[in-house]
């Protein structure tokens, strides 16, 4: 028989998740199937128009919204890849360092400063009269300041910067548990240093890499503030598109259907991750047999 007290203890969590997670999600899902009321809000009739709108094309055959989805996907994949590539050596170094508490502390310190302030700090660094331009001018490397801001590179740099801790932390926890003796074994058996990292370290920290990818890809895919501040104002990422639908056109159903799209795309990633994890767990549960001598 199931314990009743268990249900009781989990009540606060159930209330919390329902109130702040499930209910808002249900509202988003519901709104995506409703019609748009001119001047904002929704009309309570079933309507698939908001979904059809996603596939809308211009007269010359360009997809208005799918192009934004595609661009967002490219930016998110690029930013995630860069983040993981930088986070891996960082996490490896921290895991092998003696003073890793201090190093982890340094990774977490930026969280003490407000997210928006950190983004605007990058404007102060990359701007026309920012630190970078001023330094390069002072050193005589540049004659005229360069516009580093308002392009994809600036967005990628800041996306990588803001998401790096979310990749470093899960990677660190898996690499820390890794038996570095295995690298010696690989070297001993004939592998070069690089080969031992590639063939032995990476496969054994795969779980951590997948977690890091999800922790960075999902927030980046829905990001709003970074491209809004750093990006080219002529191109939108999905997060910006949804915000503009809500704020400027009051198109709640369209904002909702786009949110559902993000949910589905991120959900696919989570399902793959869960399936992979279950598979790993199954392999670990095989009973260890007695030695047969």
């Amino acid at each position: 028989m199931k314990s009743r007290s268990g249900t009781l203890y989990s009540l606060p969590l159930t209330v919390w998740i329902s109130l702040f997670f499930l209910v808002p999600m249900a509202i988003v899902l519901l709104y995506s199937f409703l019609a748009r009321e001119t001047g904002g809000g929704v009309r309570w009739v079933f309507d698939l128009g908001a979904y059809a709108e996603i596939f809308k094309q211009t007269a010359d055959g360009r997809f208005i919204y799918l192009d934004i989805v595609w661009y967002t996907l490219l930016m998110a994949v690029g930013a995630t890849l860069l983040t993981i590539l930088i986070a891996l050596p960082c996490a490896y170094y921290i895991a092998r360092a003696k003073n890793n508490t201090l190093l982890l502390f340094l990774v977490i310190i930026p969280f003490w400063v407000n997210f928006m302030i950190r983004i605007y700090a990058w404007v102060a660094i990359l701007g026309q009269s920012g630190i970078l331009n001023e330094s390069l001018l002072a050193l005589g490397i540049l004659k005229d300041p360069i516009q580093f801001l308002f392009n994809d590179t600036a967005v990628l740099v800041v996306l990588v910067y803001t998401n790096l801790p979310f990749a470093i932390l899960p990677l660190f926890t898996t690499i820390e548990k890794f038996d570095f003796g295995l690298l010696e074994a690989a070297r001993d058996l004939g592998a070069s240093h690089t080969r031992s990292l590639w063939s032995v370290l990476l496969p054994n920290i795969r779980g951590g890499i997948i977690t890091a990818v999800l922790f960075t890809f999902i927030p980046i895919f829905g990001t709003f503030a970074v491209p809004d501040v750093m990006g080219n104002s002529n191109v939108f990422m999905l997060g910006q598109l949804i915000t503009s639908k809500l704020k400027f056109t009051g198109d709640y159903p369209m904002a909702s259907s786009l949110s559902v799209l993000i949910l589905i795309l991120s959900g696919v990633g989570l399902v793959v991750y869960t399936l992979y994890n279950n598979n790993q767990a199954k392999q670990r549960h095989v009973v260890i047999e007695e030695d047969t001598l």
Partner: protein
Amino acid sequence: MKGSEVRVENADKKFGDFHALKNVSLTIGKGEFFSLLGPSGCGKTTLLRIIAGFEGLSSGAVYLDGKDVLPLPPNERHVNTVFQNYALFPHLSVFENIAFPLRLKKMDKAAIQEKVTQYLQLVHLVGQENKKPNQLSGGQKQRVAIARALINEPSVLLLDEPLSALDAKLRHQLLLDLDLIHDQIGITFIYVTHDQSEALSVSDRIAVMSEGRVLQIGTPFEIYEAPADSFVAKFIGETNILDGRITAHEGNLYTIDTDGVGPIQVTSDREFAVGARVRHAIRPEKIDITKEKPAGLPDDFTILHGKVAESIYSGFQSQFYVETVGSLQFKVYQQHESYIERGPAIRWTDEVYINWDADDGYIVELI
């Protein structure tokens, strides 16, 4: 011979303030089963890791068949290691673990299949090849580690306490297997252990180490019967130590006036001056114990009277701690076949006589 000669010259290794190896020199012959024996922290594993290429030297040299290997990284030395914790790759099956070195060499599939099967047979693991390491028992893991280390056909196999994580019975079985494999493939084995009985039973020669130094190199027989100093005498097996001054010297027969039990006689091949203070050792199994005073023994036997302070029955033998004059305690082992012939059993608190032959005692060193 397929094995290599390993020569270590004046090897010195410091880790910060810790002096792990102090001027170690030794030569290990082609195809030899050589053990590095010593307590933990004596530098034996450090020496092994230096030969493998995981550590460098502060000064000194390591030669493989006369070639200086110190500049070579581990993957370029014709040496493979069986690690203490097995170090099997958890993400690979038994087959793939053993095939790992061959895949690195980009050997073709059919050849890999054939060679891995051959080594699976060598370590009796046929039928287990699809299992992951976490599905194996300790003994099986160790066999995989051995097969994986051997498949590159190294000229030297390094074994770092390979049996220490296994239970006693399995340890004994695997030790015999290792000895058989050594006989079959004939390469040089360097075996690190802190277990003197392991080292004695399979080694051709043993180097006894302590605090970064090699104290003695010799065959198991030499190490046991003629320990170079009191550390070796105490570390290898059990022994009774008597210190004293040499008072007479006739041929190879010495008389020592020992502290506590007075004059005893011992033979020695080495030269000691009359008046020198020496340490004398006698192994417990070489001492005879009786209830009656033994009669008719030659003059050079030592006979002491004492009382059994402790008696431990351990199946194939009994151990006695006999307290003698000078309140010295002697450890005596007695096999049970003679136990019955001697009539009444010796018990705790019994008055007994212990005796040994001058040929069985041994002068360890000057003190």
